[in-house]
């Protein structure tokens, strides 16, 4: 894989810069640390789709032993570089996202009731917190019909970042 040494180094350096830029955005105290609770956001904002379990694995690996609750850039950088170079946590194709909603829509109505979605999202899989659930519903529920037309919602979630 690393035949072309220069090219590989350049690629690593680009990845480093990308990671540092994302990290810095969350480094509120300008001391190259971030709150451990932000790490998931950073990893995901870099285009990754980890599960909570996978995220947890990474976190235990990089959390600072002395400063609990904080993650240092020097710990985060190599781990995250590996993730990006090896293309872990790859995006889930969006047609699968729509299919997933169709699985939940067992009666094939074409929509979900807010209560249905809430039940699935807070009781199945890697459950949402109340905040997450509230925010999702505020974006997903059609204000007139008070149901979730999930096809529209998938369209919104998958819209390309400009």
């Amino acid at each position, binding site marked *: 894989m690393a035949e072309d040494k220069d090219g590989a180094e350049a690629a690593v350096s680009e990845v480093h*810069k*990308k990671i540092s*830029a*994302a990290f*810095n*955005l*969350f480094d*509120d*105290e*300008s*001391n190259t640390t971030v*709150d451990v*609770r*932000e790490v*998931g*956001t950073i*990893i*995901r*904002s870099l*285009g990754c*789709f*980890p599960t*909570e379990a996978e995220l947890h694995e990474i976190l235990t690996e990089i959390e600072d032993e002395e400063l609990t609750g904080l993650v240092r850039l020097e710990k985060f950088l190599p781990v995250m570089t590996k993730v990006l170079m090896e*293309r872990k946590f*790859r*995006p*889930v*194709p*969006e047609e*699968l*996202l729509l*299919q*997933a*909603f*169709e*699985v*939940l829509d067992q009666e094939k109505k074409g929509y979900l009731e807010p209560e249905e979605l809430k039940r*699935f*999202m807070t009781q*199945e*899989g*890697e459950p*949402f*917190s109340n*905040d*997450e659930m509230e*925010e*999702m519903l*505020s*974006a997903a529920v059609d*204000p007139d019909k008070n149901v979730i037309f999930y096809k*529209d*919602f998938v*369209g*919104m*979630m*998958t*819209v*390309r*970042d400009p």
Partner: protein
Amino acid sequence: MGCGTSVSTEDQGKKLDRDESTKGSCPALTMKAAILIQRWYRRYIARLEMRRRYTWNIFQSIEYAGEQEQLQLSSFFSFMLDNFTPLNGSSPCDPMTEDGGVARYELIDVEQSYCGPHLSFPLSVNHTNALLSAYKDQQTLHARYVLQLLHETMKFLEQMPNIIHLSTSYYKEITICGDLHGSLDDLLLIFYKNGLPSANNPYVFNGDFVDRGKKSVEIIIILFAFMLLYPDHMHLNRGNHEDHIMNLRYGFTKEVMQKYKTHGRDILQLLQDVFSLLPVATVIDSKVLIVHGGISDMTDLNFLDSIERHKVKSALRLPRRTIDSVMVTRCSSQGKGAVRSRRRGPARRSRLRNHSGRSSSSSSSSSSSSSSSSSLCSPRVSSRSRPRPSLASSVLSPTHSSYVPCLDSMASIAIETQPTEEEEWKQVVDLLWSDPKIQDGCTPNTFRGGGCYFGPDVTRALLQRHGLRLLIRSHQCKQEGYELCHDGQVITIFSASNYYEVGSNRGAYVKLGPDLAPRFFQYQVSRCTRKLTLHQRVSAAEDSALKALQEKLFAHRSELVATFQQYDKHSTGAISPSDWAQAVESVLRLDLPWRTLRPRLARLSQDGDVEYLSCFDNIYPSKTAPQVTPNLAETLYRYRTDLETIFNIIDKDHSGLISIEEFRHTWKLFSTHLRVAAEDRRPSSRTDLSSWRPSGWCIGWERPRRRTEFNIKGLIKTASTLS
């Protein structure tokens, strides 16, 4: 809602087992589907969070950079004021002089047709109620009553000490509010949630009542009225925007003149003094210090207690002696990069939410030393009864302007003043302008250009020296409306929600009871019936932030292009994203995540490099203004807010019109100051400032107006014809 269907990541890997997820409804499949949706949704939110953060950074960087520009020009503004403004000294009709025993406002008739509220003094609860409901109905208070109210406010403030001392023992709780910035909705919401000020419900408003928002007049009228009604239960600290020169730039002057066409000038003049008479600090139970900005390692509350605070009319109007030294320091500090540590990032949403209502555990400050040694601890009565003849007499005497001597030329700048005046000025500016920082130490606030950054050690030292436990300050917009730092010894409280943009931040106030454990209350004013989704909020804010950033890029076009070209060794018109990011930061020094922002600002070429000229595409006027040299357009763009401020200064009657002579003179002075070549040919009409407004800058390129007006195009035309 969105309609795009493409995946937003670079990778299209298909790992999930398709067959499984398409049919049937077994529990395992349901769980798998739920996890998949949860993964997608969490990533979607993460992207939004990142965009929200850089949007916040853009707003904050640009906001502080504006203040820095304003302060950097302070010597020039002082000079302008001395030369052009009639506001100081020799005004023929000073509304606050009571020569014949008749105040000027009494000569103003209230027309029969006036249907707003009527005031009589002393004020009663009926009056404040009438004011509140009138303002809710979009009415205005008659100029006569405004002047009378300001007059009464000034009389009241004259006998107030510099530092007000309050005690919780008389009340259950004291409410402290931060910046309002002309946002009447926020003030009304606070009153709605927390009750009106009264003997049982005391308030401290911690400065920055005015500027930026459109209802600054209403806010100060309400606040002053309540202060007169409940002088012992309603307290106002001065903020850095209670400053008549700041008001020229940030909108309050304009607002007053629009609302009070005939008497606006008198109101502004009176306000200049009222603002400078506002107390600069409040202390609760000798334990909690409340100031607008913060402190420095020089802050000395005993000294501050003794100064004549009204002498500090403006942070931008230095005592004479300082001007030279400031000019020197400014030169020497040029080229230094902004300090990376200056920015407090946005508060973490979820985390801080959980903190609400919890105390900041005032830690182990050994509060045994509660003896009355320092004057800070002296009870309020004694400081109030202390005679202050010098203050009262100097304010009211006709010669009170002598401390800001009118200058005929820059030559007289070196006039001697008492050294204490400079010290007083500095002490007050530090209180009004400073921000906390994470690292120890005290450094000049290079980002804002005034006050300083104070570290945890500075806070600790000051609190210890005065036997205090807590510092409450405002001055910085926070995502959640409040934030703790310095181990909980410093609280930032900010009460204007949606400050940068709809949805950008919540507002908050804090309540202190006898246990002095702060309790926070958050809110957000919303105008639309349906709550905006996070996506909608972020996108709206992001758009306006990016627009502001594009203007910044354009304003520094030639420097940027020169820098880009240094990286572009082969003149291809494209450089690597890293080089591009570095080049932009080296010129703009806004400390922004340029790499992350790049896709929103500039195009990539096919081989992944940045086509650097594309970052001017959205703003450059190109063919629509053929007669204009790009450099002139750029210069005007860059200094437009400075120029607007300056025009406001020379526009003596605040009519929005200045003569071409005045314009020419100013432009010459200003361009000399900036060392920009100015040309001067002669157009022939008066110049209208009213179209000279920020919006005109973004869109004003297309169509020239008929008269010589100061939209950007008009200005460029005018300036380029001066020779």
